[in-house]
């Protein structure tokens, strides 16, 4: 199980070929109270960089871009009725979806936890 982060403040937690995707603690704080999450459907296929979900807070609506290419295998249905889960537990219970990763090498462009920590420290 390895976690990777992107500069757009998304994370993907990889076990074998499956990646669990969400937004970072930093992102949920920046977005403020999250009121709605639009999720993809199981079976949808995305290429790296495609718009895959939308997260809406009282401040703004933001697109979530796919960090990797692959097929959606599961979505976090809990978010449909309780979007605030992303605020209370961004990097655990507030995950968005699981994706079957088709190309491992796409993970190489992402940061590890330490690298991301340094990255957000640089933003403040």
């Amino acid at each position: 199980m390895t976690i990777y982060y992107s500069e757009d403040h998304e994370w993907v937690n990889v076990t074998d070929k499956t990646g669990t995707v969400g937004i970072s603690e930093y992102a949920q704080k920046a977005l403020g109270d999250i009121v709605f999450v639009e999720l993809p459907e199981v079976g949808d296929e995305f290429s790296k960089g495609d718009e895959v979900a939308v997260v809406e807070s009282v401040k703004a609506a933001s697109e979530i871009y796919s960090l990797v290419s692959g097929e959606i295998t599961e979505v976090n249905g809990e978010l449909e009725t309780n979007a605030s889960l992303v605020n209370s537990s961004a990097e655990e219970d507030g995950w968005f979806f699981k994706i079957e990763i088709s190309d491992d090498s796409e993970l190489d462009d992402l940061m590890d936890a330490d690298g991301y920590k340094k990255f957000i420290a640089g933003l403040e």
Partner: protein
Amino acid sequence: MLNKQGRPTGNEAAANAGNTGFQSYTGAKGLDQPELLIYEIGNTNHTGVDLPEVEDFETRLGGLERDQEIGLAGLSEPEAMRHYTRLSRKNYAIDMGLYPLGSCTMKHNPRLNEKVARFAGLSDIHPLQPISTVQGALDVIDTLAHWLKTLTGMPAVTMSPKAGAHGELCGLMAIRAALAAKGDERSIVLTPESAHGTNPATAALCGYKVKAIPATTEGRVDLEAMKEALGPDVAAIMVTNPNTCGLFEREILEMADAVHAVGGYFYCDGANFNAIVGKVRPGDLGVDAMHINLHKTFSTPHGGGGPGAGPVVLSEALAPFAPIPYVLAGDDAFDIVEHDVEGGQSFGRMTAFHGQMGMFTRALAYMMSHGSDGLARVAEDSVLNANYVLASLKDVMSASFDGPCMHEALFDDRFLKDTGVSTLDFAKAMIDEGYHPMTMYFPLVVHGAMLIEPTESESKQSVDQFIGMMRHLVKAAKDGELERFSGAPYNAPLKRLDETAAARDPILRWQAPE
């Protein structure tokens, strides 16, 4: 003999009353009356009008009669009248005070406009009347079109778009039609980061991909970045001038040349035309299409007070693609062209009829009462007022960019750093001071934006009062009076609303009180 029975008139009586802070029976605080929803005032068993019972009624609806009560409350005319009048007293309006909503140009709506708009020959007419009976109205439209073309230096105008964003749609549809006519379909529209949200939305609605152009540290479009993004697949650039930072885009001629060089078109968002009307003609800047918000620059009521109107001026290149219908001035009479000429290139029809007639009459009344010299003074005074606000506040607030502004002054939230007060809190505290807040958190290119547009309507006394109020609030924030901001508004009919709960658990239908 001296009459001692009259009512007391002096302050002595009020002083002797000495009763403060009590709860009234009705919940009213004097003239500030609480108001229920209309469903809660009336009663579904009551009716506001007495009609005789119908006897021997035979239905002809063939079984489609309503089988339940409709459930609407019956109110008498005075009940209904009072309900809406009371609600209107809780609202803020340009007729009540300075309305500094940046990029919205909330200027005074002169009463002369209203008088003219109510002339029977202009108001009591119908779009389907015979053309011969509405010649005066068509003359108004044609004269207004002439003024718009003259003020913008553009050869053509289409009057039918109903608002600014509708005008943007019209302009982009004309651009798309012009490209299609050349067999040169393109897929990208460029908008600056500081653009009104409607610009990228319009482009997306027209099927274009939107690419954002970054701003320079000066708050203007980064010309070099724009040139890099331009290419054979770019249909248009959409630029607002002056832009939403309240700054004139000095390199606008270079932008126009650059987009024309790659075969694209230049759409100008005319939302901020008030700053340059009578001073700068967009046609001279290389603009191909621009909407004009009659409800901003030309003083027709808006923002809950009335509909918008967004005529679009077009360059020679785009004019053939303008939508129908349009007014044609013949030798003897005006006509409305409802169908494109044989072999014509109009992209079609956007509205059933010919635009917002009531706004046309008001806008033309405004133009003619000001004259072209008066309209230039409008631009001058709007810029003067905004710069007076900027100069009077920049020592205590943080102006986002150096130098003078155009018609609106942009501040960001650096001056609130470490006070615990956010732009939102500050805006809410302005409500307690009796003002409509400025535009906040827009444009997105600065942090915690506060965009103030006083317009030319305000006297120096009025702007001074506003400046004094703002300085007072800044001092309170810096003095640590946090509570005053975090819970504001305290004096409004409704207190701070829970936006999160409203978005997470919206109640979209009226529910009877338990």
